[in-house]
């Protein structure tokens, strides 16, 4: 199994090169790849931190947007892009929140996402649930703010900053 995905990872890095994706975009692509495991916390953290840089911010959102609008058979792209977006809404720059609110219809319309694979297993359900969760979060300003604040507090406590 790991060989198969190592080969895929190699193909992805070739694509990153031939399509001229930047290093940041390559990070987003690998965090939202078709590998059957979720994006790692450290990868998401790195990407979320990069959204504070305006140049990287554009690159990241562009790639997430691409992944969100991918085909049904790439439902993992869509699901992981939602996971990454959710993470960046909590941890990333306020620009992510503004961007996501402005383009909420991209996520909202994924609430009816459908994909049934060859084994007639409904793979769309995780996308539908995640899309619903994020839509509700985006519509609830207070909750979004308090979740962002909690994250910062937690991080400050863990790194020993703040609360001095």
């Amino acid at each position: 199994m790991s060989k198969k995905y190592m080969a895929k990872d190699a193909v992805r890095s070739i694509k990153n090169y031939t399509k001229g994706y930047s290093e940041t975009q390559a990070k987003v692509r690998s965090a939202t790849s078709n590998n059957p495991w979720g994006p790692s916390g450290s990868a998401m953290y790195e990407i979320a931190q990069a959204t504070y840089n305006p140049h990287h911010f554009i690159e990241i959102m562009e790639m997430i947007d691409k992944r969100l609008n991918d085909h049904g058979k790439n439902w993992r792209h869509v699901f992981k892009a939602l996971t990454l977006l959710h993470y960046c809404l909590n941890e990333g720059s306020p620009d992510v929140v503004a961007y996501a609110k402005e383009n909420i219809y991209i996520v909202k319309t994924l609430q009816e996402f459908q994909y049934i694979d060859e084994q007639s297993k409904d793979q769309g359900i995780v996308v539908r649930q995640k899309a619903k969760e994020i839509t509700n979060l985006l519509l609830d300003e207070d909750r979004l703010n308090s979740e962002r604040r909690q994250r910062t507090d937690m991080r400050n406590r863990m790194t020993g900053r703040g609360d001095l």
Partner: protein
Amino acid sequence: FPSRPVDREKAEHDLALNIKKATSPDETAPKQKHVRKCIVYTWDYHTSESIWTGLKVQPILSDEVQTFKALITVHKIIRGGHPVTLKDAQNQTSWLDTCARSISEDGIRGSGYGVLIRAYVEFLKSKLAYHRIHPEFNGNFDYEDYVSLKNVDDPNEGYETINELMDLQDRIDQFQRLIFAQFRKSSNNECRIAALVPLVEESYGIYRFLTNMLRALHRRIEFIDALAPLGSRFNAQHYALLKFYFECSNLRYLTSLISVPKLPQDPPSLIDGSAPPAIP
């Protein structure tokens, strides 16, 4: 003009294809990915003109399944699209009439879609008429508190708004019962069930509005007896909706797509002010 990366020329080209595929002759639900592209298009460019043009150049009117799928697609686009879509749709009633006229009672396939098409057109026209008179509501009746409060500021006007909203709710109820009556044993009914999906969502949005507007009105008016007709109508609609959702909850295809709201057995009190039920 959208902040996301887009390509207008490609979008226009894709849109024509999406409309074609959403209204294909296969007796299935209009594929959500194509409907979604249409909805996203209206938000990206704040227009729906190309969609109407696209629908008119497609040869859908000779086939009842295609026409029915076009109506489902239109309903979903009106609900989920940019507000401009709802305004544009109000100028398309003659196209809707054409849809209703073009298909005979049984259609060519003899599958009874003619009746459903005419009922769908009637429903869409009354929905559009409601939105024309009450532009403060959005296409999908997403719940917004200030609308319900604003509408009961003037009790007379509030009474009318609620009454007309109840008329629309009754129409949904009639239409959904017709759809169930047209189910065929020989078919998986996916195409017919697909029309129930936006109806479940729409009826629930309306229900939530009605609950809150009626509560606000009860708080405002001292002579509660005057509201009795609205109250009993609300109760009747509650039971009708309860039955509708129960029947929907037995349709596996539908429940795999959306969660059907669970209403309490008895209608909620309109006098105490507890919060309206949240969207499931």
